């Protein structure tokens, strides 16, 4: 998935190396909206080493209006407590970007995330961790084991260490695999547009 879609900032358009180099640049008074977007997309998920929230498709929108930045963030499941830390990380990175930025608000938008939002690079990063991405409408049985790249995954227990993931067993290579739940609303449906301000 490399294209943009309405309301979605395509993380695939960001070159990670280039953005990392930029992160070391001196802070300036100017607020460059594109740069702020990139900074937000590159915030790493606190539980998934090496995978950014942009690549997970959690960033719905980044709005830069003068000195204020507003980010819409979709957690991968209802009640995810990691969003608190992610919000702090976003705030820290954005405010540290330029002294001209006076405020950063992160809105938590529930019930809008699905694995459709995970980019190709996000999928590759998750695979590195042994986590397979099941797309909406797909199934574990069709998925390939992230370790031996063969089919043959069997579900083992409803949810894993976090509620956005299920546990599976690879019958081929006998490794424990996890799978991203296709939808954030799998467990409980809640109205969209429920905002929590930090």
């Amino acid at each position, binding site marked *: 998935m490399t294209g943009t879609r309405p309301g979605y900032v395509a993380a695939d358009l960001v070159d990670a190396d280039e953005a990392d180099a930029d992160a070391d640049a001196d802070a300036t008074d100017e607020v460059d909206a594109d740069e702020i977007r990139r900074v937000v997309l590159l915030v790493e998920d606190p539980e998934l080493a090496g995978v950014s929230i942009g690549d997970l498709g959690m960033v719905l929108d980044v709005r830069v209006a003068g000195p204020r930045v507003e980010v819409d963030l979709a957690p991968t499941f209802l*009640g995810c407590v990691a969003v608190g830390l992610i919000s702090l990380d976003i705030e820290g990175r954005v405010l540290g970007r330029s002294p001209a930025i006076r405020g950063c608000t992160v809105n938590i938008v529930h019930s809008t995330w699905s694995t459709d939002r995970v980019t190709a690079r996000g999928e590759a990063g998750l695979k590195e961790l042994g986590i397979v991405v099941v797309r909406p409408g797909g199934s574990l049985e069709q998925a390939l084991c992230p370790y031996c790249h063969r089919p043959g995954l069997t579900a083992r227990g409803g949810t894993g260490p976090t509620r956005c993931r299920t546990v599976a067993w690879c019958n081929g290579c*006998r490794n424990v695999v996890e799978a991203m739940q296709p939808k954030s609303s799998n467990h409980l449906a809640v109205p969209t547009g429920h905002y929590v301000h930090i």
Partner: protein
Amino acid sequence: MRTWIDMASFEEFLNGGGIVEPGDDMPQVYREEVFRFIEMHANSELFGGLCERHWVTRAPGLNRKLAFLAKTQDEIGHAHLLYMVAADLGVKTRTQMIDDLMDGRSKFHNVFHYKTQTWADQIVIAFLVDAAALTTQQAVLKQCSYGPYRRILRRIVAEEGFHMRHGEEMLLTLADGTGIQRDLFQDALNRWWEAVMHFFGPPTKDGDLLIRWRIKSDTNEALRDRFVQKFVPMLHDYGFTIPDPELRQDAAGHWHLGDIDWKALKATQANVGPDSAARIALSRAAWVNTTWVREALTA
């Protein structure tokens, strides 16, 4: 499936950086050592989850309650992954592991043999014990010779790092708080420091099989020292006192602990620590009370 003609060729394979896979014809003694190590880790995650669950309803504020709920899910989830890898080794079934744990025949980490008396005790566990666990797990992850364990550790370590950040944030709240809050943490630190030092285990003996077979890569002493160098200055910075009168810093800035009394650790290893019986009974109750759920799921 790979086979080795004798222990010498297997060890040569390990020394060359080889990774053992489940289908390999590994020596039975290696299989049992890996199993024992993973079973202990799984048991400790399960007890960690049960310990944190106690605080879900007691933690101050909704956010803390939510965090403890998620951490409980994490720990029980980690236990689930670990029991799968352990059971696959074929030394014990999952049921045997659970039975042994609940009948007091298995080991679990020393820190879960003590009662948490105050909220600050739980913060010591959430920050210092999680940090200690992270230190040991990172060292295993670095070059563990058993493939499936190393693979799930990658995910577990990332999540433990997240827990530690959460624990640190709770600690900072107390450190930044009133005199009463700071005293609460200092009291907890006084109660728990020895147990945290014990967490790394007694000095590793020469010829230790876990190290020889690269199941873990650092001695208990080295891991404890790594922890001390990082967390002693940090706790000092926050204005707390380490309850070790012999603790000293040498000219090079290196911290040295006083002699450690291992008596309390030995009691926990024999499941006769201060709160061992109650903890084991609690885990049994949790298991028995949820039998109907497991039966319903498999019906």
